């Protein structure tokens, strides 16, 4: 019995097929597991090890290096308040304090209703739009405590707080674990051919053509 549900298992196979070696798929599959359940469970790691020819310990070894993977349940919404210098200069730390106070948790903790986990995060790459916070990695720019309160109220009421229009994100805000809502798909008839490096011998065709001329 696979850990992944049928749709995710198909996705997982497709992801592995995009790499010359299956182990390269460990991080994408950890994301997929986190998308399925909101955090990375021991069963997920065992399954990923099975699929990529590694061990569960190796999967945990890799996964635990990266901030985004959670090995315990977290809130449906991960509120990451940036306090790095660009944001600090314009009130990022005050914003974090407000988030902690209003949600009743310290950074790293999850609110009693299980909805919100607050994190004190490093630079989220929106520095000119400081101070900035993200919810499940969706940005809220030039935020103040009112912005944060409005977003929290929206989420509690089941409304999407994502800004509409423009060139940005829109639609519903997915639960923690879902990153891109669009997946890469390489159609079989368009695939150039992905093989392990040891199965490649010699220069690619277009270079050989060039030399032959």
């Amino acid at each position, binding site marked *: 019995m696979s850990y992944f549900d049928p749709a995710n298992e198909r996705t997982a196979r497709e992801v592995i097929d*995009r790499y*010359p070696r299956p*182990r*390269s798929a460990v*991080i994408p599959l950890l*994301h997929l597991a986190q998308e399925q359940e909101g955090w990375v469970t021991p069963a997920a790691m065992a399954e990923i090890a099975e699929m*990529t020819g*590694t061990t569960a310990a190796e999967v945990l070894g*890799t996964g635990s*290096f*990266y901030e*985004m*993977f959670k090995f315990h349940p977290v809130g449906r919404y991960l509120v990451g308040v940036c*306090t*790095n*210098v660009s944001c*600090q*200069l*314009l009130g990022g*730390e*005050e914003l*974090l304090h407000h988030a902690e106070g209003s949600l009743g948790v310290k950074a790293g903790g999850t609110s009693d209703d299980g909805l919100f986990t607050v994190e004190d995060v*490093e*630079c*989220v*790459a*929106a520095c*000119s*739009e400081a101070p900035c916070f993200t919810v499940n*990695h*969706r940005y*809220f*720019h*030039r935020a103040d405590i009112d*912005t944060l309160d*409005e977003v929290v109220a929206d989420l509690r009421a089941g409304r999407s707080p*994502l*800004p*509409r*229009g*423009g*060139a940005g*994100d829109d639609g519903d805000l997915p639960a923690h674990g879902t*990153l*891109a809502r669009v997946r*890469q*798909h390489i159609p079989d008839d*368009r695939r*150039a*051919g*992905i093989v392990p*490096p040891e199965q*490649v011998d*010699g*220069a*690619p*065709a*277009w*270079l050989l053509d*060039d030399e032959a001329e």
Partner: protein
Amino acid sequence: MPSTYVPHAAGYVDNDGPKIVTSRFSHEDSFTLERSLATGGYEGLRAALGMRPADVHAEVRDATLLGRGGAGFPAGVKWGFCPEGVWPRYLVVNGDESEPGTYKDRLLMERDPHQLIEGCLIACYALGLSQCFLYVRGEMALAQERVATALNEAYAAGYVGRSVLGSAFSVDVTLHWGAGAYIVGEETALIESLEGNRGMPRIKPPYFPAAIGLYGKPTIVNNVETLANVPWILRHGSGAYRKYGSEASPGTRLFTVSGHVERPGVYEVEHGITTFRDLIYGEAYCRGIRDGKQLKMFIPGGGSAPWFFEEHLDLPLEARDVGQAGSMLGSGAIIVMDETTDAVRACHRMVRFFARESCGKCSPCREGTGWAEKILLRILDGHGRPADIDLLLDVGDNISPGPYPVASFAAENLEAVPFPPLQTTICPLGPSAVAPIVSTIRRFRHEFEARITRSDTIPVVAADPRAGS
């Protein structure tokens, strides 16, 4: 929509200068294949496919396209480091942008993913690279969506995959996501991560993964912005590219300006000829310090760069000049701090970043960054000891021995120490943590001393470092 919301993609600020990589940013649908094709998209690829691969490489080399990730190494030269006769070769695109103060690559991926894909394809064609891995920072959900959509469109339309545009050129492009680790921006750590491991930098030599990289094979690692320049170079030629910017640094560059300026944003500016003063004070750019305040200091090239002050404003935005002046242009991130900024608090926050992001492989960095952060925290808390300032410098000296790069101080007759620093570590993360320490202590030692002296009179309750100053 509540009034406090600002649209997601805010950030890029248009100006009258030349547009090489941001030419489509003003279009709302800039990320679609349709818009790309309507505005010259994939024409650089068509031009390249009509040339011999070696000539495509020569064109990029002649453009003197400098790497935009931080080190500023010429991309055309790096492309020439693949050993003869070793196959396959890979391309890894470094989109793991995490340097504090920087977000140009995110905008390039979100707003013009086809331009990046086209640049990747041209590089693969020129060098005989059989697969490209587009490593996008894990937190950048929208960038991942846009790149995935663009790749799906490009595969379907015949620009990527088997027999690109009916030619003998075939290449697969794989979108890969990171999962939150600053150090993965270091190219050998990036490769480790792509192999499914903890993102720890590899021992050097070899200094370039072009010799031994992904799966032990020759691998070219380029920054997103670097590759985004390539289609333009192939469309218009290296000669046209060199007409912009300075001789040593041709073309344009994206600068992210944040902090206490009137109009922060990402600006495309001519490389090498614009000065910090133009960018920070110019009407077309950031329009000066907020609220009529005075400049106290600025970071010229991301969190890893030693800090600059008022007297360095007239330096050009040029890697060599900035390096000789004791800092680096790095990833083009300028963080501006006005007179109200607490130097100790800003220094602590930057050091805390490096302490959190140290991968733990080299002892001087693993132990030193955390130690320095603790010392700075106790100084902030009012528990600093008189010896702490020299202790901080000593910890720094064990990560980065010898004179550390610093800017010149004309008033004190002090010469600049040029970049880069020496290091006792495999990668530059450890030495980067020393930059804020040395920069602030050298210039604002009195602020540290004042904090420490105060500890004599308020010994009991620590001031909360995060309370507003």
